[in-house]
């Protein structure tokens, strides 16, 4: 099991001009560690991070898109695995932070904390699917994962690093959205 913040710190070292889509607890933690214009925080309607990721990947095929989904969020939109696999965006890397709980909603367990998301993604038709349980393997392989032709899936088996503050209006502030659009439409 990895601490999510340690995992994200390693990921951040590999992120340059990618679009990063993050949901709920992943959004709060990623925004703390790596605030940048090319972050998009999928909050306000749970489950849509993967669909937003697909939209960005289709809209900007020249850019890599990294989705930091939550396990509870992805369970609300499992069909998106099939949609993404069929659309087959080569520039999409879809990660799910699997901690087995609805962390932002009181730490209640998801319906089955042992669900195998990578197996779901593989069965749906993702080009590659990985499952990381320890930080050393993640650090060694994340560069390779991000370089694969997508859609690529990775389960990150994490635990909460610390209690988070969920400031949703901040995460989805109008100025953040304007900055993202400006960064994506600048010619």
């Amino acid at each position: 099991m990895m601490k999510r913040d340690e995992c994200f710190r390693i990921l951040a070292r590999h992120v340059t001009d990618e679009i990063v889509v993050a949901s709920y607890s992943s959004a709060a933690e990623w925004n703390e560690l790596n605030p940048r214009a090319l972050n998009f925080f999928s909050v306000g309607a749970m489950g849509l991070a993967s669909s937003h990721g697909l939209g960005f990947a289709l809209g900007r095929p020249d850019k890599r898109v990294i989705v930091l989904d939550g396990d509870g969020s992805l369970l609300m939109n499992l069909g998106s695995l099939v949609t993404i696999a069929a659309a087959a965006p080569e520039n999409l890397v879809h990660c799910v932070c699997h901690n087995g709980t609805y962390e932002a909603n009181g730490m209640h367990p998801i319906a089955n904390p042992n669900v195998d998301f990578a197996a779901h993604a593989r069965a749906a038709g993702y080009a590659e699917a990985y499952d990381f349980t320890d930080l050393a393997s993640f650090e060694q392989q994340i560069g390779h994962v991000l370089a694969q032709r997508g859609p690529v899936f990775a389960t990150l088996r994490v635990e909460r690093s610390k209690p988070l503050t969920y400031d949703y209006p901040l995460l989805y502030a109008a100025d953040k959205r304007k900055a993202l659009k400006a960064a994506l439409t600048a010619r």
Partner: protein
Amino acid sequence: MDAPAPAAVGSTQGDLHGSAIIAAIKASGIEYILSVPDIVTSAGLLRPISRDADLRLIRVCKEDECVGIAAALSYCDKRALVLIQYTGFLDSINAIRGVGVEYKQPICMMIGLLGHEPERLPTQSGRYGVRIIEPILDAMGIPHDLISQDADVAKIKPAIDKAYAQSLPVAMLIGRRPLPPG
């Protein structure tokens, strides 16, 4: 929950050609069609769209996926049309509420009114699910147009242009089965 048949109204009579709707969609700058099949629009819209090289069809598993995809495409200056049945609209209301209305994203929806009687207004339909659609859209503050005959097709481009200009959702209700091309 079907209601007794109300009096018919004459404002929704006439043919509706799918080819005219598709031409209006293209004229609106739409590049992506995001859809779950609907028998109302199946033959007249979705099937010809699936063969149209100018439009990219993304077949989704559940209608609320369309909301996230369309919103993200709009950040990239790409226009999308969500083509679904009213049941899928009802199933997607939280996504439309959150992303479309509260976060002010241009989600353009073309919604087939399954079971609607074209000679009536939707609010007078004998079908409960159809009757509640316009009141729900009104409650959410989402502008909507009824597309029931060819004369209504002229409403499509202005509605889509306005949605993208003002970054707000819009609904176009398909009140009769569009005729397939040919």
